[in-house]
């Protein structure tokens, strides 16, 4: 479920040890921004993005990077860092290129850990820092705060200081309103040399379950015991009236031997036939199973995709050093065009903020989403690795003893021997009789 939450998508982002500015400024070559989004669950997602042209050395600190304080950033419930490098044209004809470096850092602050259970937040409470000055080399240095209200009335939250401008856009199919703080705007910081953005909920959001996205998914292993099991993926379409197709891609390691005939897809209690299936069977120790399906998800439904498997017994050198931990099965990948609720609106790419490139909108009626379900942990039948030496000794002994005795019993012939009777006298007599050539007594 966690993997399916929108926050996972939201976060891409940034990097950066310290801030970045260009020594020799074309002033437009560094853009930095921070997007702060309160999540429905009460947590707060913060996404930094720094984009620069990498044609000279990077030096200096300042601007948004003062907020990057390790002990705070690692006390969060999610964090992700990325570096993107790509060539960009320097002019319209593309006669020369520069390299563009984009660094992103996304973190999700846990409301219960940083906010002591309150959903109000401020820059200082999250980062234990406030913004003091813009990066002098940056051509753009902005903070965006998501102030979208989920209810109709606009009175549920307020930001402080009040923003000079707001910006509206459609992100993942919902209309969002952002308050913009431009750090290059001298009025913004100069008043107190200190910008501490705060958000207060006028009416705290009720303790209800947070709203669910239109598409989310869940995956688990069912069954018990170490012989068989079942992989189940639940696909939720919570849209009230629109059905949409989903491309489901599964790669399953070879040591889970899939029974493809047990593949069942059910929606609303009825069988759901996928419009396309591609299956490539596994080869032991060479390649995993590959299963790809295009499934239509009916409106407001849960679709269950399940397939049974048998656990293989590995060679003993193939076990990992921690075999009792279990083996990971990678997540299913869901790709879908999810319908959005808002109407289309033309977007001016040059003027729009950087984060738009993270959530490209092709057309207003739906948007593209790629979801990863949670990875699974599957236990395989595992021998007791502390035992082999004992077992080898014991079995060798048993085999040796049994083999010797049985071989003995099978190859010897038995006949009943008359017990030796008679004493010394009889033996002597027999000796004499044998010497005489007469049969013994």
């Amino acid at each position: 479920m966690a993997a399916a939450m929108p926050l996972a998508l939201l976060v891409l982002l940034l990097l950066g040890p310290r801030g970045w500015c260009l020594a020799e400024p074309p002033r437009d070559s560094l853009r930095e921004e921070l997007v702060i989004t309160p999540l429905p669950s009460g947590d707060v997602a913060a996404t930094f993005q720094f984009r620069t042209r990498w044609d000279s050395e990077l030096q200096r600190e300042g601007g948004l990077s003062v907020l990057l304080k390790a002990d705070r950033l690692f006390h969060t419930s999610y964090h992700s860092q990325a570096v993107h490098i790509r060539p960009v044209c320097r002019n319209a004809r593309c006669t020369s290129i520069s390299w563009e470096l984009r660094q992103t850092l996304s973190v999700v602050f846990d409301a219960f850990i940083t906010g002591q259970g309150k959903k109000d937040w401020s820059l200082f409470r999250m980062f234990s820092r406030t913004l003091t000055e813009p990066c002098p080399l940056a051509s753009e240095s902005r903070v965006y705060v998501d102030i979208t209200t989920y209810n109709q009335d606009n009175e549920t939250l307020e930001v402080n200081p009040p923003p000079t401008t707001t910006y509206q856009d459609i992100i993942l199919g919902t209309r969002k309103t952002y308050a913009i703080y431009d750090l290059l705007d001298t009025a913004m910081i100069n008043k107190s040399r200190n910008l501490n953005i705060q958000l207060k909920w006028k009416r705290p959001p009720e303790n209800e379950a947070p709203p669910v996205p239109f598409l989310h998914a869940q995956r688990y292993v069912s069954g018990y015991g170490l012989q068989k099991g079942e992989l189940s993926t639940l696909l939720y379409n919570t849209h009230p009236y629109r059905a949409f197709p989903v491309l489901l891609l599964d790669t399953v390691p070879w040591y889970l031997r899939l029974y493809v005939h047990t593949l069942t897809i059910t929606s609303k209690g009825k069988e759901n036939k996928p419009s396309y299936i591609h299956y490539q069977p596994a080869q032991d120790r060479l390649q995993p199973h590959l299963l790809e399906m295009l499934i239509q998800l009916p409106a407001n439904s849960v679709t269950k995709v399940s397939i049974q498997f048998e656990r293989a017994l590995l060679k003993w050198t193939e076990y990992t050093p921690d075999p009792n931990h279990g083996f990971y099965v990678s997540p299913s990948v869901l790709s879908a065009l999810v319908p959005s609720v808002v109407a289309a609106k033309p977007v001016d790419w040059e003027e729009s903020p950087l984060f738009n490139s993270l959530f490209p909108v092709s057309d207003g009626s739906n948007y593209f989403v790629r979801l990863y379900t949670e990875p699974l942990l599957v236990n395989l039948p595992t021998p007791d690795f502390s035992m082999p030496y004992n077992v080898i000794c014991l079995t060798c002994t048993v085999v040796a003893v049994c083999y010797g005795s049985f071989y003995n019993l099978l190859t010897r012939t038995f006949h009943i021997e008359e017990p030796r009777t008679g004493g010394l006298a009889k033996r002597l007599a027999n000796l004499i009789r044998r010497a005489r050539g007469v049969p013994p007594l």
Partner: protein
Amino acid sequence: MGLLSDPVRRRALARLVLRLNAPLCVLSYVAGIAWFLALVFPPLTQRTYMSENAMGSTMVEEQFAGGDRARAFARDFAAHRKKSGALPVAWLERTMRSVGLEVYTQSFSRKLPFPDETHERYMVSGTNVYGILRAPRAASTESLVLTVPCGSDSTNSQAVGLLLALAAHFRGQIYWAKDIIFLVTEHDLLGTEAWLEAYHDVNVTGMQSSPLQGRAGAIQAAVALELSSDVVTSLDVAVEGLNGQLPNLDLLNLFQTFCQKGGTGSVGGPQDWTSLDGPLQGLQTLLLMVLRQASGRPHGSHGLFLRYRVEALTLRGINSFRQYKYDLVAVGKALEGMFRKLNHLLERLHQSFFLYLLPALSRFVSIGLYMPAAGFLLLVLGLKISSLHEAEVGLEEPGGVGFQGLTGPISKSLCALQGVGLASLVAPLLISQAMGLALYVLPVLGQHVATQHFPVAEAEAVVLTLLAIYAAGLALPHNTHRVVSTQAPDRGWMALKLVALIYLALQLGCIALTNFSLGFLLATTMVPAAALAKPHGPRTLYAALLVLTSPAATLLGSLFLWRELQEAPLSLAEGWQLFLAALAQGVLEHHTYGALLFPLLSLGLYPCWLLFWNVLFWK
């Protein structure tokens, strides 16, 4: 082997076994019992030690201080519970959400095969509530469970309070690497069973339940908590699960570590024996554990987790008359420590023993050391089988032992059987198995017929039908006599006894391997009578002995022994009532949780016992 391949020496050995058979049997039986009693003494018991590295050396500092919060939660819970008369689902959901958990509910319903008079329930429906604490920066692949089963009365509200306070405390920490599931189940074990089946998406007992919305990967360990008061003098730990399964000993060691730290903890029942650690106490604890394990029922909701290979135990707060009492903070700290150490686990618990007996919390007997006790008892049957065989072959070939006997007693006995004519054995075998089948099927199937014709309730009908069929089995000898026409009187009963002995030995051997306690208990009682049964001599005495050691009588005796060991002796009438209740519970547990004791006794041991009864009254 050399001994066996030499016909002369083999014959000598056979003669020795035959001549000394009775003393050898007695010796072996006595050795078995003596070995078992000796398990209490140090050479056979060892001190427990932590095998799992991940939990052993690392230290944790417990910081739980939410005693007041736990008590407040418990009060609120009890009040809401009283008001609504059932589990206050909405309140629990709200409270769990307010402490920051991801909350889900699951509703379930189950119609029991017949009304459960002990718990006063028949058509059961309820709701489980569980909250998941998601570990930060982890992918929800592993989880731990803290569960509180709530029965029909509100005795467990302190445990719910402590669970919520612990959840609030855990939620504020950032070191969790595994998700933690806080589970409150309604109708105690039925709710737990419903939740577990839904979590693993299987249906083994015919429970109807709604599918789970939230999951947290593979469950690594579970702790069930039962508290009935604000203060405890000690914490008792229950390990015995369904069908005598036990959790890994390391989980118990973990509990013991924190008990030593906090000074609280015991095993095996309401008394605290921490101060008196003598052999007598050890024996008492050991016997109690053997009886609990032999019963095959889950002693706490942890018992149901074991089927899914989730190591689990139940902690039960005991409030006795000792001076020093611990409050909820101490219990909470012990739990916090356990969970933090379980959080360190890199692999499933697998390093320590899965098969053990506990004469005290800090001592254990491993499987290698207790098995000889059962082995000696089974040896009696082996000796009897070989002597019977020799006697039979002796009847056949007065000249001596032939070569054909070399391949072992079973094929020998088959040869002997051919002499008798298998036909004469088919009837008693079939009839006794049919009686067993009737005992297994009829009571539940025929309860409605019984309630229509007799003035009894369903539950009574089931128990009385059970007893009636059981007793009717004793009429078997007369029945078979009309069917069987015996030619050679002696050989007939000997062949039957041979078959019965082999059957019994195989069954007891298998049971002792999977559930030592049950195997040992049954071997102790059934072996002497089985060895003695024959149609000559003091038949009344033998018959009395056989009846006294039949499976049902063993159950009755175990109940008396159980209460005697708990220092709450039973009067005869109470004992009988308890016996009837235990019968009903046994049948119910088979149907609701899949306990195997009832089918094992009715389909396996009872028919086998009938064979001996048949031998005794052979004419």
